[in-house]
């Protein structure tokens, strides 16, 4: 098996606030890792460290074999192209239509693509998330769930090798949540991607993840498969499964 992300002794604090104290993890190709944890424990900060949106203080973050903390801008950009990131709030560009949002994502990496190919790629990505008819809408006209699905389409359009999902199903109705979990699973199977999925949604974790980790006080408190953790005697762990 090939390790695509390896994190060793990662630390990050903001001023006085120590958010991540000692994070260690390994993600293999084709594997989905779900990270659980209370609100404010630093799950989003962790994923942002992986793409260097947040500069880690200490430790090593190997993405596809190279330490992200030691890269120059060029290498960083190359690596970022292979890593998709779904933001917690979707992070759609307000001033652009849905179509432009998706095109913006690909135009730097696939300049050579013809207009027609681009259009087809965009339409196909939107169909994948079931929102083909929203193509000419502005983000302000979309509901929260739709924004998230468009955000997902925008992340997937580049066919990244690694995808970081920050709460892909939070705030969605159970049906849509199920569909998104299904989609995450499909993407993994189809393209053999590796993902880190941050979630509070146990159904999503159960469906998608090969491996679960529970975060507490800046470290991983417990880890294992869904069935291992669900049989745990630890009160803290049990709380997630009740």
């Amino acid at each position, binding site marked *: 098996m090939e390790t695509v992300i390896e994190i060793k002794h990662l630390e990050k604090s903001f001023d006085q606030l120590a958010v991540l104290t000692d994070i260690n993890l390994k993600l293999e190709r084709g594997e989905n890792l779900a990270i659980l944890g209370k609100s404010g424990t630093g799950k989003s900060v962790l994923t942002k460290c992986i793409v260097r949106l947040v500069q880690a203080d200490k430790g090593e973050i190997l993405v596809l074999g190279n330490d992200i903390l030691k890269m120059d801008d060029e290498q960083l950009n190359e690596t970022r192209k292979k890593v998709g990131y779904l933001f917690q709030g979707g992070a759609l560009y*307000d001033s652009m239509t849905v179509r432009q949002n998706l095109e*913006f994502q690909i135009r730097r990496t696939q300049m050579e693509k013809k207009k027609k190919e681009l259009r087809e790629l965009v339409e196909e990505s939107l169909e994948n998330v079931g929102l083909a008819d929203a193509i000419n809408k502005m983000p302000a006209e979309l509901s929260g769930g739709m924004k998230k699905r468009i955000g997902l389409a925008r992340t997937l359009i580049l066919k990244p090798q690694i995808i970081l999902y920050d709460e892909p199903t939070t705030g969605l109705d159970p049906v849509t949540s199920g569909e998104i979990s299904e989609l995450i699973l499909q993407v993994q199977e189809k393209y053999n991607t590796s993902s880190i999925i941050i979630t509070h949604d146990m159904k999503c974790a159960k469906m998608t993840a090969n491996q679960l980790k529970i975060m507490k006080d800046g470290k991983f408190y417990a880890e294992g498969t869904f069935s291992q953790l669900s049989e745990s005697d630890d009160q803290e762990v049990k709380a997630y499964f009740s």
Partner: protein
Amino acid sequence: MEALKENIVGSLNRFFTEVGNILLFTGQVIRQFFSAPFEFKELIRQGYYIGNKTLPLIAITGFIMGLVLTLQSRPVMVDFGAESLLPGMIAISIIREIGPVITALLCAGKISSGIGAELGAMKVTEQLDAMEVSGAKPLNYVVATRVMATTILVPILVFFADAIGLFGSFAALNMREDISLRLFFSQAFDSLSFADVIPATIKTVFFGFFIGLIGSYKGYTADRGTESVGLSANSAVVTASLVIFIIDLIAVQISELIYGF
């Protein structure tokens, strides 16, 4: 007493940190001007948007500015029997000082705050982060285009305001006496020299640059949380206005050194 001292030291500290940060940001943005890709389409879009948003406001203000200035100065000039100097005097004050500064302040209120709020919102909703991870440099795509647009457009808007201001002045004179448009403009331009126009124009380029830059800086460095959007818009206006006056002061000193007035 101790608390006061701490307060002052703290404020000074914050002030100089801010100035340093703005300078660093300025350097980064200028570097983006010369680095690929050049976002021509976005530049045009921003330019169109800025012009569209400010033109009516600047037209009305410019007209009133010329009108009021003339109505107020005329009695004094008449007392001295120097009516024929009035158009020249008005032209000089409008073109050298009032036109650029008033237009720049209006733009600070309208454009800087707009950019501050827009970028602040983009920052808070992680749009800037999203651009960054997709390999597009927000400093290039979002900031450099806006700063370039204001740098190009503010001088044009000032020129426009000057022209309308002179028409306002002509209108005011026409209420009181009979003067032909031709005579008015020949009297106005006779007293103007390059020494009036060139420094004033160069000054407006700097006004434009900093109007875009301060708005972008405030938005780009917005804190997390929605209330910071309003905050960045607000402090963009205040800081940009302040910077405009500082540039104006420096410009006066420099043109005095060069031209001797």
